[in-house]
């Protein structure tokens, strides 16, 4: 049972990341590989505040988001200078730079050694140190983010995002300042990734920069594409697949140290096959 709860917590954390990227990629058509950085920023803010101060978990989540908002605004403005194809390369470069900062700002992040001893929260007199309680917290945050995203894609704002994905120039000619729309959705999704990072840090009680590298961005991208572009339920399916697939490999007797490499290989293969035969992913509505 404890094992299943652990998987459900992982599912919640990565589903938030997947949903955030799906708003950007599936609905707006922007491929970003910077999301692991925002995930990391949220994680580091929570880790530092919970380890060194008596800040409450929810306040640390909020402060993580507050930190990420101006940074993502700045990075979003930089990224907007490039066309859609270069956008991905720029986002990759930004992730590499921020990963370097996580590693090298040792005074703050403790570099490659990471930060340990991050406590689990106690909120409204509920102690979340047990996994079952923590699952509740993770599910509540996932539900809030899912509902918020569901709202976004049903508003006129969400409709404009889709026109940016389809033909940004025509969208501009209709009087939409697409630059602002792209920036706003970038900041919203970066903030969601930061919330996921806070959950991650507190759950594992240890973080180091390796969790926030380009590989993580690629995994978030895989979740989004496999589950389905422009489909929020699809992202949940993609995350479920992403969480359960390596576990299945363990059950068939593959040593755990080889599971990670094999997982990467299989995800790569699945994405290639999907692009060839079902480019919109399992439940997607949009083809890349």
């Amino acid at each position, binding site marked *: 049972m404890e094992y299943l709860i652990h998987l459900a917590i992982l599912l919640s954390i990565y589903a938030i990341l997947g949903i955030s990227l799906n708003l950007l990629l599936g609905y707006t058509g922007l491929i970003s590989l910077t999301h692991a950085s925002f995930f990391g920023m949220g994680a580091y803010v929570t880790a530092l505040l919970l380890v060194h101060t008596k800040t409450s978990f929810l306040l640390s989540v909020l402060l993580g988001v507050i930190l990420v908002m101006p940074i993502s605004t700045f990075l979003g403005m930089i990224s907007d200078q490039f066309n859609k194809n270069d956008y991905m390369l720029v986002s990759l470069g930004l992730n590499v730079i921020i990963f370097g900062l996580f590693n090298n700002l040792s005074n703050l992040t403790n570099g490659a050694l990471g930060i340990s001893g991050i406590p689990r929260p106690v909120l409204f007199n509920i102690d979340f140190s047990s996994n079952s309680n923590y699952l509740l917290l993770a599910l509540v945050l996932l539900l809030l983010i899912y509902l918020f995203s569901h709202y976004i894609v049903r*508003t006129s*704002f969400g*409709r404009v995002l889709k026109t940016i994905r*389809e033909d940004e*120039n025509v*969208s501009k*000619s*209709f*009087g939409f300042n697409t630059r602002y729309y792209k920036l706003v959705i970038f900041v919203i999704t970066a903030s969601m990734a930061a919330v996921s990072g806070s959950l991650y840090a507190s759950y594992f009680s240890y973080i180091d920069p390796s969790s926030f590298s380009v590989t993580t961005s690629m995994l978030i991208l895989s979740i989004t594409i496999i589950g389905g572009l422009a489909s929020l339920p699809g992202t949940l399916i993609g995350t479920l697949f992403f969480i359960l697939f390596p576990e299945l490999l363990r059950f068939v007797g593959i040593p755990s140290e080889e599971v990670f490499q094999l997982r990467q290989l299989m995800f790569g293969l699945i994405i290639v096959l999907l692009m060839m035969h079902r480019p919109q992913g399992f439940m997607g509505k949009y083809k890349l």
Partner: protein
Amino acid sequence: MTMIKIHNLRKRFGRADVVNNFSAEIFKNTIVGFVGPNGSGKSTVINLLTGVETIDHGDIYISDILVKNKKKLINNYSFNISRTYQDPRIFDQMSVLENVLIVLNKRKVLSSFFETKKPFNSSKVEEVLRKVDLWGKRSALAGDLSYGQRKILEFARVLAMDTRICIFDEPFAGLFAEMKLIVSELILDLKASGKTVVLIEHDMDQIVKLADYVLVMNAGKLIAKGKPSKILSRNDILDIYIGKDLHEK
């Protein structure tokens, strides 16, 4: 009253002067036929007018306001212009309904964030889609429509935008006779409701039937303007339009 005034417009692609000192006036509440052989520069003039291309030299005034068109892609909507393209540019992976609904959206980011369902927009979309006979296809993806239906959908967007100036780039190309009839009636309706319509078209029967006057372009220049029946029966225009040899035959 002049709605659009174009003065000494010039556009060069590489070494070719695609538009060369083009000047013209388009009057309010008229249908203007914009004709000329392929490659004469008609679409480029429209692209300059709607900001798809940047102007090298010259001025465009819309309702006496100088359009600062040095940057690419002006916001046509703010100049009260809507247009269609030679190859329809609809949002393929959105529904037919959404393709029309989008032009009724609030434009500002914040207000669009709080706009979900609006009865006015829904009824307007229904009215427009029924008019062009696409209401039955409202839930279909726009990309799944036939070529003719895609053109009609683009037309529906123009109707929904309700701008003062409507520009149609070859609206009859690739349409069946029945659809052509619908489109020509819609164009006449637009004029009747006070709009200014610019029509780029090769179908001379439609131009004669619909246009109040025509502008004829060749090799980037305006070579004639006037009543369609007079201009389009001139031998020099026919020589240019269909080729001298063919005309003499």
